């Protein structure tokens, strides 16, 4: 620890998102500028984990003012130092601009994206140096572990977690306290606790952000869990595609060992805990508990039937408990501040907060931690800033590839485990993909099914063979070769895969198809029976555009917009599109002031 304080801290996001948008270069430039102005002793640079607002990266926050600068470049650093740090003047052009009001927002606390969030598990992410155990401790880190070990019995820890109402954040939603209870109650001289960081849903990166931004919280959560169930050894199973997360976590493990927060007789108790990282090769199915354990054991990552459950017979045949990263990140808070701190947030059946990864056709993409029970509308419009490009909302896919697509009339659905299941989606790990009017729902279903088909481990018949057949049908439909009976065939296969697959991957794989069939069946029918893609997204179904001659006012705007001169007609006369020339680009359609142009 340095002896003198700094008057200013500059927090630079060093998450994977910002690394790829160039934070390292910006940081180097900043260091140079500070040196040039002899400010190195006054201003401290802190490399943090992800702020969740990757869309706007690289992100820097200047303290003590708390000014949020986004999309900064190395060239901006001179101005930031001379203006902000030396003269105390905010550099307006680098502030975040609210997409609706176009207003510059200097403080991140005032940005809509953050305003409606409630950051419990992400509290430290982006606000502490992810590679400093001291900063974690300064924010109350390891107090929960100390409290658990010195003041609580394992059963009391479990009761507190049960009381908190925390449910598994990886997708299943199984009550964490109950899971711990099972593992605790199983007799065994050796037990394991495992952190499932095999994040695989397309677009989801909350686990990565937690590992990169607050790795000690995961370590602390695991140590508390180990104490509760009677384990003395833990594994973090993390995908090898997350090198930064692995590096930061390893650094954190080393620091914790050095501080005596991992190892033997922690806090003077007889509890000992050692922890190691196991890098997985990135198979989606390894997120499934039994496949994950097989993978740690060095075997092919294939699920096996349950029971026996991991709590009975887990890693190396020993009782084991597996929790998701986000679930574990909530544990220190629950133990440190009590179950009520957590269960005062959320709904009856779903307590606390959930981190969602917002992506798709939305203005503010990124990570948002919201209280359970918030509506989809609030997430998409208030936090997400609405649909990008001024388009209309069509659907939101929630719960990753195994989730479902929900239509506009469900926007006011409260987001909690049970409501989502009822609506045909699921919480999943918290992926949230927003789609606008130009998204074809059959194509969306096809996209997700292609993912699950490719990630199927191939063990059980319905998932291995069935997803392939479903994909073939969807390919057929989106390429204009759909037939009568295809929808029924899809339904039969979907029902079968759902009800007879061995593991959760298969059991949920048909959800995107089932939910789009439920809410957007007409799009399937249009593809099959009318050879049309209502969203205009399926290339093979685009047959050019036509002008309604009665409605056309002859304004010539469409003809001017056409890149291939396929539209003819004199001013004030009805125009005609030559379908032989038309390339179905759709450029004419939005130009027409009287909506006279439509797909052929």
């Amino acid at each position, binding site marked *: 620890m340095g002896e003198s304080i700094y008057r200013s801290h500059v927090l630079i996001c060093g998450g994977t998102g910002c690394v790829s948008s160039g934070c390292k270069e910006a940081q180097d430039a900043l260091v140079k500028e500070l040196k040039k102005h002899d400010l190195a002793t006054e201003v401290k640079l802190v490399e943090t984990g992800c702020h969740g607002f990757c869309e706007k990266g690289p992100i820097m926050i200047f303290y003590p003012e708390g000014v949020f600068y986004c999309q900064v470049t190395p060239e901006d650093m001179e101005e930031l130092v001379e203006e902000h740090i030396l003269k105390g003047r905010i550099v307006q052009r680098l502030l975040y601009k609210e997409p609706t009001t176009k207003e510059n927002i200097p403080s991140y606390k005032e940005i809509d994206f953050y305003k409606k969030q409630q950051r419990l598990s992400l509290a430290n992410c982006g606000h502490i140096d992810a590679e400093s155990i001291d900063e974690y401790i300064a924010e109350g880190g390891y107090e929960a572990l100390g409290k658990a070990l010195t003041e609580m019995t394992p059963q009391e820890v479990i009761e507190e977690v049960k009381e908190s109402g925390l449910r598994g954040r990886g997708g299943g939603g199984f009550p964490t306290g109950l899971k711990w209870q099972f593992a605790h109650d199983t007799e065994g001289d050796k037990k394991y606790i495992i952190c499932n960081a095999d994040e695989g849903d397309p677009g989801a990166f909350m686990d990565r952000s937690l590992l990169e931004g607050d790795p000690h919280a995961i370590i602390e959560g695991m140590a508390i869990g180990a104490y509760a169930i009677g384990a003395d050894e833990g594994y973090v199973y993390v995908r090898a595609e997350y090198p930064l997360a692995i590096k930061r976590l390893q650094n954190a493990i080393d620091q914790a060992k050095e501080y005596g927060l991992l190892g033997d007789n922690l806090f003077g108790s007889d509890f000992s805990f050692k922890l190691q990282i196991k890098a997985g090769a990135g198979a989606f199915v390894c997120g499934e508990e039994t496949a994950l354990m097989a993978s740690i054991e060095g075997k*092919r990552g294939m699920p096996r*039937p349950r029971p026996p459950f991991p709590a009975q017979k887990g890693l190396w045949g020993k009782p084991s408990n597996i929790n998701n990263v986000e679930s574990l990140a909530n544990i220190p808070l629950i133990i440190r501040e009590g179950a009520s701190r957590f269960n005062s947030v959320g709904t009856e059946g779903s307590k606390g907060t959930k981190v969602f990864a917002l992506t798709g056709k939305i203005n503010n993409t990124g990570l948002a931690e919201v209280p359970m029970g918030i509506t989809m509308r609030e997430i998409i419009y208030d936090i997400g800033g609405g649909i990008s490009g001024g388009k209309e909302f069509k659907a939101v896919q929630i719960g990753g590839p195994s989730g479902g697509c929900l239509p506009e009339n469900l926007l006011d659905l409260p987001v909690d485990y049970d409501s989502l299941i009822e609506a045909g989606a699921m919480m999943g790990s918290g992926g949230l993909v927003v789609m606008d009017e130009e998204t074809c729902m059959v194509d969306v279903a096809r996209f997700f099914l292609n993912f699950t088909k490719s990630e*199927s481990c191939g*063990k059980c018949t319905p998932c*291995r*063979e069935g997803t*392939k057949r479903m994909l073939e049908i969807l390919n057929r439909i989106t390429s204009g070769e759909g037939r009568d009976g295809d929808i029924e065939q899809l339904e039969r296969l979907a029902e079968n895969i759902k009800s007879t697959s061995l593991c959760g991957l298969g059991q949920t794989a048909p959800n995107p198809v089932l939910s789009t069939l439920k809410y957007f069946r007409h799009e399937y029918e249009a593809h099959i029976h009318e050879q049309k893609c209502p969203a205009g997204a399926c290339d093979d179904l685009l047959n050019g555009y036509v002008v309604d001659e009665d409605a056309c006012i002859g304004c010539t705007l469409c003809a001017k917009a056409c890149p291939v001169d396929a539209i003819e007609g004199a001013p004030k006369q009805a125009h005609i599109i030559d379908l032989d020339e038309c390339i179905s680009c759709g450029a004419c359609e939005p130009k027409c002031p009287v909506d006279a142009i439509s797909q052929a």
Partner: protein
Amino acid sequence: MDTITLTIDGQQVEVEQGATLLEAARELGIEIPTLCYHPSLSLHGSCRVCVVEDAKSGRLLASCVAPVNDGMEIVTNSSKARIARRTNVELLLANHPNDCLGCDRNGTCELQDITHDLGITRIDFEGEVRDLPVDDVGPSLKREPNKCILCGRCVRVCEEVQGVSALEFTQRGFESIVTTGFDLPQSEVNCANCGQCATVCPTAAITENRCREKVWNVLDDDSKHVIVQTAPSIQSTMGEEFGMEPGTVVTGKLAAALRRLGFDKVFSTDFAADLTIMEEGNEFIQRFKGKKKLPHITSCCPGWVKFCEHNYHDLIENLSSAKSPMSMFSSISKTYYAKKMGIDAEDVYTVAIMPCTAKKFEMNREELQEGGLETDAVLTTRELARMIKEMGIEFSTLEDEEYDSILGTSTGAATIFGTTGGVTEAALRTVKEELTGESLDRLGLGFDGIQEASLEIGDQTVNVVIANGLANAAKILDEVRAGESKYDFIEVMACPKGCVGGGGQPLPTNDEIKKKRAQGLRNIDESGKVRKSHKNPEIKKLYDDFLGEPLSGESHHLLHTRYKKRDKN
């Protein structure tokens, strides 16, 4: 043990806690179709054909893996369960070649049976069908991945029962296949060629590599003197191919059928088994007297020998150098027999009927190809049955006939070579009598995977152990390697229960069937007058007229072989 009471199809049943729904249903005599399930292997739960409905929750459960719970109400044939079962079978069929008529397993294929039983006449699904090359370059086994339904039985038997792990799932999803490491031909990996994979495969994805054509051709070739030898175990297994009870002794019918197929002489490998006992028994006596290393390990099983060469080559010196009965037979047929018959050795063509796929590999070993002493063709029990059927022979009604002399004369000791423990018992009958003049009647062995026995010979104790199944053998060999073994004599048979459980035996098979086959062989032994190899008159004559003494120079030249280190891959 606590018991659980549940209802299946309206009938109450009480079973032990931890039992599966499938076991409980079978207790009641309710059949549920299965594919990936195999009673000798670990539970896999992958084919999803055995699904049944839990009436309370409406959920479908895979009965082979779902444990029973108190108060469960299970319906095995609800329409939901039937539709799901059917859909899963249809999905398998949609990715399976539609060539039943010409398929090796036509009639013994479990997928075919289930398709028939479920009344599937049309497959609703269509699309891409797997198109992968056949691996038939090895002498023993042929793999046809297109016929594989990925039930994983071969993978499990290879790992769990044989400890070989030559097969594994690779790729993912629809591209999944079962193959060898690095997708090499099976002949280039650590496969023991035991063919247990072929016996558990529900379809024809793994079968023996056939050589029937070769044999038909030579039978038509008048310039060749074609003789046949039948392995001991065939006598109690061949009947199954013709609808007889497992274990039925068909020695006489076998001789009659072979004669009708056109073999010039019908002999038995049993003759050579007696010869093996003479050589190997004396070899053991030498080791036991301290002239060579103990323990003595048998080497008549070619699957075991290859396994040993891959994994325990440091123990090769302990392997008996005696050739297997099949190879001894062939050597004698091309020397002593040819001379005696006045036939040019080059014209003698020796066909072996074996319960075994690894014998096809043994035949091709370079050490055994030397000197024109080799076996010319190996047919499995199943292949011979095909040929008999092809000839239109009504096997079950054939009048019994005798085997030919001189290579068809054998003892009960030779016959029990076909079951686990048989070689040991046969050897010790001769060894004890040679050393002490006292007679040994029986060792009293059962059928377990590992069995021990001790025998007083004079003032010394001989400790023997018998392992069948290579994973069991590995346990014993690990002890030897670690210097913790007390055994003097170790018998290893690669296949569970010995040759009666061989990879070339009739299908289907299970432990019960194998036991009945073994019992059939023991019955032959019990009923025989001559039960000791050294009492076989033709063997005595062979030594007197031709070989001299056991382990003599000529014996060594003709009847012994050597082994080599192979990669562990």
